């Protein structure tokens, strides 16, 4: 009897012809012992998810084919298992939880039934026993009132609760191997901390081996016993977590760890430039009125006062539903504020009708979160970048000349203008989006989670770029993020929002070192890997 839950030996998976490389993963060997958490870390395209899907036998048919190696699940080769045997193994011996708890659960079946289904398929227990077992595991994942939640539909639960249900369904048969594919990436930081603690706790008590896939070194520092670093389909470094994090041997690992911003920002000089943007008592309420005035009212932002000077970066930090994006969208006038003032210099744009607003639109520009959706896929990059200046009467040639300069400024080659967005990576697209915003010669740049979708190394580059253009053009930068590490790195001042209210505001250094509001403290405490001290000269 071996204590190895999973033993992957020399696994190679072929990519379809025409991909950017021949193999998705190449000669990957990974071992997971029972009772151990092994983290696979890597950026997008590193092959970490393909490895996990191969172990589960969930590779899309035909496109990705394992060509060499074996995947031994307690000695049994999963690659050679017949489909029926594979189905039996999944659930009983190995289980998987996914990134997106919103879509991994069936919306039209109660969560209790979804856990019950696992038991129905894999065991011969009667209904009463199954229900008892399901309620038991729901207690183990610390869900309040299991009886009520058993009968709930997924939409009635929060993201964190849904992820707990996923974990419950995965763990109910006590598999020896749990594969977790970025299970906390879609969750808020406080929820993430709870889920990580839960996985650690369950795993320790039940002796499960966990293969945990993540891109976040904070999470690694929080949870891993051993770490496997992957780059472009190969394992570049492997070892005990402490060893890899403190004394990385491979350059790539060193670069990845070095790119993680720290949580202890240096004090910064207050910025003394003129005030570029000011909001007063800004309110945004959704769903008021309705035909009979009885609709559910959501106060997305309440009484928000903020001020950004030229050359200054103000960070708005908060979890989902905190109202930070609502504030940004009000300032960019993509939604109309319910009340309050938004002053650009001496003009209040909060209530200007579209026609009179237009001349002021160019003064506020916004960079969005999703690089894959923020450029029109049917238009060349050039057409997107010169669109704004041409709206304001600049001749095409002049606009193009300017666009060429901007491309160089954001670190892209000017011939990128003739290409289409799908030819660029996420980071490159974010650079293009920044160039498009700069083409308007704005005074205020809003970055709405602009680096959240990027890999950590690319994230660092785009943050540098944002900081650079802020200085160069003396911009007021409004930086919206859920990520405290990123905020610590770039912001002069920080505003923390919770449920539409600003709960704390102050210089970044002060907010991080001496948080006043309990919510800020909770956020800081929940930041993964806070005990590790990233960002200090490695």
């Amino acid at each position, binding site marked *: 009897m071996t204590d190895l839950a999973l033993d992957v030996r020399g696994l190679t998976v072929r990519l379809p012809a025409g991909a950017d490389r021949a193999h998705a993963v190449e000669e990957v060997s990974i071992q997971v012992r029972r009772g151990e958490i092994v983290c696979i870390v890597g950026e997008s395209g590193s092959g970490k998810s393909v490895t996990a899907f191969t172990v589960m036998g969930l590779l899309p048919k035909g496109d990705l084919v394992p060509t060499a190696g074996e995947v031994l699940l307690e000695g049994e080769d999963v690659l050679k298992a017949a489909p029926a045997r594979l189905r039996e193994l999944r659930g009983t011996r190995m289980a998987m939880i996914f990134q997106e708890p919103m879509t991994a659960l069936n919306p039209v079946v109660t969560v209790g039934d979804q856990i019950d289904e696992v038991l129905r398929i894999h065991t011969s227990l009667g209904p009463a026993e199954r229900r008892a077992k399901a309620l038991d595991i729901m207690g183990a994942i610390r869900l309040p009132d299991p009886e009520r939640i058993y009968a709930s539909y997924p939409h009635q639960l929060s993201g964190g609760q849904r992820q707990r249900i996923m974990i419950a369904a995965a763990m109910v048969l006590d598999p020896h191997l749990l594969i977790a594919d970025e299970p906390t990436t879609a969750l808020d930081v406080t929820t993430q901390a709870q889920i990580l603690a839960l996985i650690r706790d369950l795993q320790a008590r039940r002796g499960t081996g966990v293969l945990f896939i993540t891109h976040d070194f904070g999470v690694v520092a929080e949870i891993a016993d051993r770490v496997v670093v992957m780059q472009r389909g190969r394992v570049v470094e492997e070892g005990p977590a402490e060893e890899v994090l403190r004394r990385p041997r491979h350059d790539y690992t060193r670069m990845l760890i070095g790119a993680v911003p720290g949580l202890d920002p240096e004090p910064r000089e207050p910025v003394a430039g003129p005030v570029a943007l000011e909001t007063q008592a800004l309110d945004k309420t959704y769903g008021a009125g309705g035909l009979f005035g009885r609709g559910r009212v959501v106060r997305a932002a309440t009484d928000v006062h903020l001020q950004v000077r030229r050359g200054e970066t103000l960070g708005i930090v908060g979890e989902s539903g905190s109202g930070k994006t609502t504030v940004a969208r009000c300032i960019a006038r993509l939604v109309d504020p319910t009340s309050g003032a938004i002053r650009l210099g001496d003009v209040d744009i909060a209530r200007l009708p579209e026609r009179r607003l237009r001349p002021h639109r160019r003064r506020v520009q916004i960079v969005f979160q999703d690089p894959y959706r923020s*450029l029109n896929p049917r238009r060349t990059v050039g057409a997107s970048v010169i669109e704004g200046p041409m709206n304001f009467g600049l001749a095409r040639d002049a606009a193009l000349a300017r666009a060429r300069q901007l491309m160089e400024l954001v670190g892209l080659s000017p011939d990128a203008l003739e290409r289409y967005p799908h030819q660029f990576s996420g980071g490159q697209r974010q*650079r293009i989006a920044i160039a498009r915003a700069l083409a308007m010669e704005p005074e205020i740049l809003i970055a709405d989670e602009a680096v959240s979708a990027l890999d950590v190394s690319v994230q660092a580059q785009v943050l540098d770029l944002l900081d650079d253009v802020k200085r160069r053009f003396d911009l007021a930068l409004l930086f919206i993020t859920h990520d405290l590490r990123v905020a610590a790195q770039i912001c002069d001042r920080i505003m923390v929002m919770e449920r539409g209210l600003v709960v704390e505001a102050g210089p970044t250094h002060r907010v991080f070192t001496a948080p006043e509001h309990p919510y800020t403290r909770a956020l800081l405490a929940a930041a993964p890997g806070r005990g590790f001290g990233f960002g200090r000269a490695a």
Partner: protein
Amino acid sequence: MARAQTLPEEPVRAARRAPVLAFVRRYPVAGLAALILGLIVLAALLAPVLWTVDPKALAPTQRMRMPSAAHWFGTDQFGRDVWSRVVYGAQVSLIVALAVATISVIAGTLIAVVSTYIRWLDGLVMRIMDGLMAIPGILLAIALVSLSGASRLTVIMAITIPEIPRVVRLVRSVVLSVREEPYVEAAISVGTPLPQLLWRHVLPNCVPPLIVQATYIAASAMLTEAILSFLGAGTPPEFPSWGNMMAEGRTFFPIAPRIVLIPGVALALTILAVNVLGDALRDRLDPKLAKRTGGLR
């Protein structure tokens, strides 16, 4: 920085280079359908020179002749040349199909765009569309034709109106989802006026589903026109249309089935060709069906 400056090589896509050829290679049946449809269109366009005679000319002495060198498909009960009538009938069917598809797509798109951007109109317009959809199209068409008298224009309008609600719903759903896209919001914040915003960023997303929808509308318009003609509520009887040919020939079916079968086969073949083509276009243009690879790595 190094990573950002190395741009990926332009992916070579055969479909971009020779789209028609690649399409035919991938969907051979659709290629055949396109060929058949092309031949029918050509026949309709060149009707006068395709060894036809006046399709309306009566020749009582030549009634019910079997196919021969003079009359390839024989003659009908009034001695009219069936070949000529089928070829000219193709003109009627294709004109109706094209006109109905074009008008309903344009009108539907306009209505949808107006109703999505003028919020108080939206509810009203959509309820009217729901109401229209609740009435069977053919019934509505018969009512409209009998109210306004049978002419080519009224037939086209009568078939178009019941088709509009489907287009409105389709375009409305695309517009509602696309206008939330960050690139549309980015265009708003760089000051793009509404007409350009719609033309550049929103409506191009409607084109693929509309092309597919238009083929279905065209096919169903041909069928509806034939039904209306068959019922005597469509194309005036002196003009040959596949529908009224079948209507007039049906009493003679036991002795000369070809008078009904030939226009029937022509109609079925044309509709089949259009539908097959529409299905292939849908597969090609729907990103979910066209590429099922990628994403996972």
